[in-house]
């Protein structure tokens, strides 16, 4: 549905994105994850034909955004980083205007606006001035604006930025409900957003894609790497060696006194044996738990190794 090929954007000397390529299939929700300044907004602005790339091409629903911008724009609903709202309009008036510029045919207009408002839960404020509404509502109106013409593709740039925790949960719920038939790209710099709403993730750092994977595959990877965390009360020497004597243990490292991270060989569960050993030796077992490598750690590792 969306195909981004070798995209590069320079602002003068600054290379904002560098040779970025990725694909999004129909019905996928791609999380575009990266720290601030990574080039997320720049990429989204090029995909939505707001600005042209320096090099590379983008196709949305088969239309090249540079060659055929008007057709490409018809396919997309876009929520910029700051919701593009007119404070002096009512919610009704605003969505009516947006439906007009998105060329929703007159006979469908009322219907479409009603649906968009219902989906985004803003029907009860339809007569209110946008300028007087809270940030949460403004974000919802921004999303309603992006779906009012029933686009096949939705592009959301940091849709939960600056919201309070309750609003964030509500917006994520809303995004989940939007997906399905539609193809969605959403950018974010917070990882849980991706795990909660997306089917696929592309991690971007300093203008480069450093990882692109479906979320299912990624969590498989996460689960197979099993480390154990062990904490004991008595600090004897030789503990490390004794643990290493287990067949199934491949590596042990003492992170601080009395605390160990134990890496077992793939698929082997040594928790029971390890517990017996600690108790048998009277080392004073304080804590023993599996240390799954979280997505968070993968994210941090990926952006710090590639970035440096």
């Amino acid at each position, binding site marked *: 549905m969306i195909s981004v090929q070798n995209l590069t954007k320079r602002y003068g000397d600054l290379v904002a994105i560098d040779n970025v390529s990725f694909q999004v299939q129909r019905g996928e929700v791609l999380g575009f994850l990266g720290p601030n300044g990574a080039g997320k907004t720049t990429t989204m602005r090029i995909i*939505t034909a707001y*600005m042209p790339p320096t090099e590379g091409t983008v196709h949305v629903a088969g239309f090249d955004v540079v060659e055929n911008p008007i057709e490409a*724009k018809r396919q997309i609903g876009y929520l910029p980083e700051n*919701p593009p709202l007119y404070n*002096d309009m009512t919610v009704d008036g605003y969505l009516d205007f947006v439906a007009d510029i*998105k060329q929703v045919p007159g006979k469908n207009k009322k219907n479409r606006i009603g649906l968009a408002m219902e989906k985004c839960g803003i029907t009860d404020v339809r007569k209110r001035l946008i300028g007087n509404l809270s940030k949460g509502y403004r974000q919802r109106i921004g999303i309603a604006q992006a779906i009012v013409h029933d686009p096949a593709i939705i592009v959301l740039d940091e849709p939960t930025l600056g919201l309070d925790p309750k609003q964030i949960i509500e917006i994520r719920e809303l995004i989940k409900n939007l997906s399905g038939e539609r193809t969605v790209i959403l950018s974010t710099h917070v990882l849980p957003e991706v795990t909660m709403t997306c089917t696929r993730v592309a991690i971007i750092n300093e203008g480069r894609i450093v990882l692109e994977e479906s979320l299912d595959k990624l969590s498989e990877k996460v689960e197979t790497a099993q480390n154990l965390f062990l904490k004991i009360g008595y600090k004897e020497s030789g503990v490390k060696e004794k643990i290493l004597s287990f067949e199934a243990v491949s590596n042990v490292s003492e992170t601080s006194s009395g605390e160990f991270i134990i890496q077992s060989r793939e698929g082997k569960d040594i928790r029971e044996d390890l517990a017996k050993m600690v108790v048998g030796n009277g080392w004073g077992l304080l804590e023993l738990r599996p240390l799954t490598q979280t997505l968070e750690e993968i994210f941090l590792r990926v952006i710090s190794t590639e970035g440096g």
Partner: protein
Amino acid sequence: MKAICTILKKELKSYFSSPIAYIVLVVFLVLSGIFFFLYLQSFVGSQFDPRFQFFKERLNLNEFVIRPYLGTMSVVLLIMIPLITMRLLAEERKNSTAELLFTSPLRVLHIVLGKFLASLTLFLVMLILSTVYVIVLMAYGNPDLGPIFSGYLGLFLLGASFLAVGLFASSLTENQIVAAVVSFGILLVFWVIGASSDADSSIMGYLSIIDHFDNFTKGVIELKDVVYYISFIFLGIFLTHLILDSERWR
């Protein structure tokens, strides 16, 4: 066409839902009213002044009231029009609604034309309301209607050119105050450009935005003046389009 209308409608609503349109209208009408009655008063006064006895036949409403009134109006427009146009594009960029407009399937030219026509409409309302003074005048005297008509046509063309400059200035920045100051600056340059040259026929004289207005106030509609203003308007719209279409603006 529909796209232009959509933008035009939105801009007009925006003008009249904020105080700016009303303030501009009221200030314009009050100022034009004050000047009009000042000129009228001095005209009435001079009728009884013995010093004017000898060329009394030259004393007429057109020469002593309408012409200076139109001249003053052109100065008032110079100051007021940047206030009308300053928000047109600067505000869109500031509120990132530009991202909505320019990712919608509208042509940039339609957006520009819609905005220009909206400001032109507000300006037309100003002009039409200000004709009440002329109507008052007609109730008391009988001025020559030809120069009044041509004068108002001149004001319309002059104001429309100011609007085109203002729209262009508004496309350069996201700060409305900067937009207003820049358009005022550009207009002032085109205003005084004629004063520096002594010959009317020089290039500087031809470029001057106010020299072309003079004929209109005398009741003369010359093609070269009309062509000048129309090209001025087209140039302003073209440059605005150029700026909005350029990569740097985004």
